[in-house]
């Protein structure tokens, strides 16, 4: 609607009104029709989500990934859950079969990306500095510098943090939460947003279960209480249990991404 004369709202126009003044079409019309005096306070309706821009960039990333036929996974967990070891083992098992690219998010250092490159995969390290999570823009920029291949995987290792990454869509197909058995069974209840946002949970370091008081059934029950639809795999990246199921899940996702890109 024209803020000077009020015409243009809902397609309405004022008769004999030449519209010599500039106006910006707007959806909301809570702006005063008469321009206020300079020191007069007026109210502007904004009604915009704080995550609106991140979400828009995530949509763009998702579209790019769909066109390329790349299956993208956002791996989220506490620090020390074994994400990087899991990734290195994943790369080893998929070597020569599925092309994998990795984005590593950490506040500081390129140690994780160095480990991934040593395992033979292209990796970009994103240092978030003071930031506690990756956002869609960081991932979009990193994607441009990675050789993403049709039918391949993009594994995004988020900053170790069970709180903040839950809110930030990166454009991934799925969030995968990793909970290690050296943590508490009740993490899903303490950090419900993350376990609610995840489609798959890896209960990792299961080889250590005989040495711990950790109740794996209870941990699974807590995760399902927060997210009844969550799929759970008990895994050990170092001993290999559950890894076949995890790798098959990744393979199936990559194959589906390739099929969907070809059909589009």
């Amino acid at each position: 609607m024209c803020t000077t004369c009020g015409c243009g709202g809902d397609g309405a126009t004022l008769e004999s009104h030449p519209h010599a003044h500039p106006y910006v079409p707007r959806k909301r019309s809570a702006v005063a029709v008469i321009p206020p005096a300079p020191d007069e306070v007026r109210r502007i309706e904004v009604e915009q989500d704080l995550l609106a821009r991140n979400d828009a960039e995530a949509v763009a990333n998702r579209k790019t990934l769909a066109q390329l036929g790349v299956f993208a996974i956002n791996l989220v967990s506490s620090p020390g859950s074994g994400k990087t070891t899991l990734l290195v083992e994943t790369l080893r098992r998929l070597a020569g079969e599925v092309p994998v690219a990795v984005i590593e998010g950490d506040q500081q250092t390129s140690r994780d990306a160095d480990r991934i490159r040593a395992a033979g995969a292209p990796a970009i390290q994103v240092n978030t500095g003071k930031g506690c999570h990756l956002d869609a823009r960081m991932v979009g920029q990193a994607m441009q510098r990675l050789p993403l291949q049709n039918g391949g995987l993009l594994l995004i290792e988020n900053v170790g943090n069970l709180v903040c990454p839950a809110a930030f869509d990166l454009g991934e197909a799925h969030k995968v939460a990793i909970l290690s058995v050296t943590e508490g069974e009740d993490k899903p209840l303490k950090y419900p947003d993350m376990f609610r946002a995840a489609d798959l949970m890896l209960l990792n370091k299961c080889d250590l279960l005989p040495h711990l008081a950790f109740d794996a059934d209870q941990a699974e029950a807590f995760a399902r209480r927060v997210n009844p639809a969550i799929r759970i795999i008990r895994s050990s990246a170092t001993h290999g249990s559950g890894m076949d199921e995890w790798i098959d899940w990744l393979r199936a996702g990559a194959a589906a991404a390739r099929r969907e890109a070809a059909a589009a």
Partner: protein
Amino acid sequence: MHELSLAASAVELIEAAAVREGFSRVRRVRMEIGALSCVEPEALRFAFESAAAGSCAAGAALEFLVVAGEGRCSGCGATAELETVYDPCPACGAHPMQVLRGMEMRVKDLDVE
């Protein structure tokens, strides 16, 4: 401290509104924050003060409108207030409650001059 990023996003939204609407100073910002959202309002207030420095929102009062959590039972259809995203349905005990309200994180309106 994702509140820092959220505060920076809020300032960006406000600066874009300033260009669009032609105002130079914000006196008050009202944000809707859902009780189930992952935002700690006082952390957001603290972050906003620093994120707004040097912008048209510098020194603006920040007011939160807290939106209570509300969900509908996916089993029996009852609606109830939610304190957590995984509260069981008080009527039938079934999970999950579908969240209807309480996840909001938005800039609602501005008082500007």
